[in-house]
């Protein structure tokens, strides 16, 4: 799966969590860009992304996310690792 596909699927998750179909995210999107993105929704979003892609982030990885792009990049690395070591 390419990073752009991951971003599109994450966008769908965002629309569902933030109950807003108009949300369009990009790799540079940060919490300040979305009104309802508080710490509660942040936690829900991380869990939803993990469940959707079947991956588990390390705490250090989550703490290092500076924007949506960072998260999608880690998802891609984990999906690629899973493909190599199913």
């Amino acid at each position: 799966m390419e990073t752009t596909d991951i971003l599109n699927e994450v966008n769908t998750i965002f629309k569902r969590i933030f109950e807003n179909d108009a949300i369009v995210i990009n790799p540079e999107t940060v919490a300040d860009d979305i009104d309802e993105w508080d710490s509660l929704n942040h936690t829900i979003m991380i869990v939803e992304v993990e469940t959707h892609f079947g991956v588990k982030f390390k705490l250090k990885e989550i703490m290092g996310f500076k924007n949506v792009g960072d998260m999608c990049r880690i998802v891609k690395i984990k999906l690629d690792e899973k493909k190599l070591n199913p």
Partner: protein
Amino acid sequence: MVFNSFNFLLFFSLFVAVYFLLNHKYRWMLLLTGSIVFYTFFNVYGIFLFTGVIIFNYFSGIAIEKATNKNIPLVLSCIFNIGCLFLFKYFNFFNTNLTEVLKIIGVNNPVPFFNFIMPVGISYYIFQAIGYNLDVSREMQSAEKHFGIFATYFFFFPKIAQGPVERTRNLIPQFYEKHDFDYSRVVSGLQLMTWGLFKKVVIADRLALFVNHVYGHTTSYSGYILIIAGIFYTFQLYADFSGYTDIALGAAEILGFKMIKNFDRPFSSKSVTEFWKRWHISFSTWLMEYLYNPLSMVKRNWGKWGMVYAIMITFTISGVWHGVGWMFLFWGVINGIALSYEVLTVKFRKKLFKKIPVALNKHISWSITFLFLCFSFSFSRNNNLSEGFHFITHLFKNPTTQVDLFNLGLDPLNFIVGVAAIIFMEIVQYYQSKGSVREMISGKPMMVRWSIYCFIILAILNFGIFGTNSFIYIQF
């Protein structure tokens, strides 16, 4: 040397003059020396612990950066820093309680007390040191190699006594930048310092006369006296702490440094969650970044209860950080419970508020939040649990004896001046919500500008309470 003293006025004026005359490459030496002199006015012996902490963290940062397994030096540095804080701030409190417990079973406490005055600013510099080591371990910044700059960052006098709780990644790079004398920046810094001084000496220290009198004899009062004292204490605390911060940020701005914002109209908050994003921001973001976020993420599969878990731990530590004693612990727990309630009921409250007109919703939310804040602050101001219990149980009881409101530290004139100054501060803060008041003033004609300056300075000189020797948050 506190900010509202003549000594500081003299020290800072001389310091600024020499600072701008000196070549940039020597300025960190002046900042370090000046800051050490400033600190020694509080506590000469505290300088040795502070220096020890700086030396340890200088090497621990480098060790963390070089280590393959960063956890070992990181954990060691945390043990050292928390150990110092425990020993110098909390040890005697624990020992006192241990003595009481052992007394019940008829045993004498063999552990001796630690006779040392708590060093000023210890909670602030220890938390900054922990944050620095965590940042290096997360590779968010490299370890600082210049020991002089590293020590200057920690000793930097505007923040040495009561914050803001800075981040090395924000302030250290600024010590390498050359700061030329900039007239408009100096004027802006002076405006902020003057406003901070107004809040401190006209509002905080005036309200303190009433607050200290009532809280000094809590059990003698009930009803509206306790309510007024509670509201006054809430404004006193804010004016005192934000006043200090304004002076600190203004002093740093004059020298060319931009420190973290610490307050953003906290009493305009419409929830306790919002309040903690607006009050003591440098500290609450520290807790959020280094404690709450990791804790809530570790327990993210618990959903909202994972957040409640993280909130309760974070606010209990916040309470304990603020002071030694059960009252501070309870204050932290009360705030943790309020935030947990807001997390658990967020969807229900959103649905409920959709049925209420927006304006009414705002006023109800603001009123509930403000009353909660007054309650939590005023409760924690009590000297012990029994006085705190009296405070809660007698808030709405009529006074049993006749009490003259104007005989409790403030005569009618001073009482009115105090209330008027609070209203004036809130009006200024309302304008702050529209944009920078300092920029608004700068855009006015000279006559208007100087009229405002004269008004504030005359208010400070005429209505200021001078001679108080401390700020509330300095004890934390």
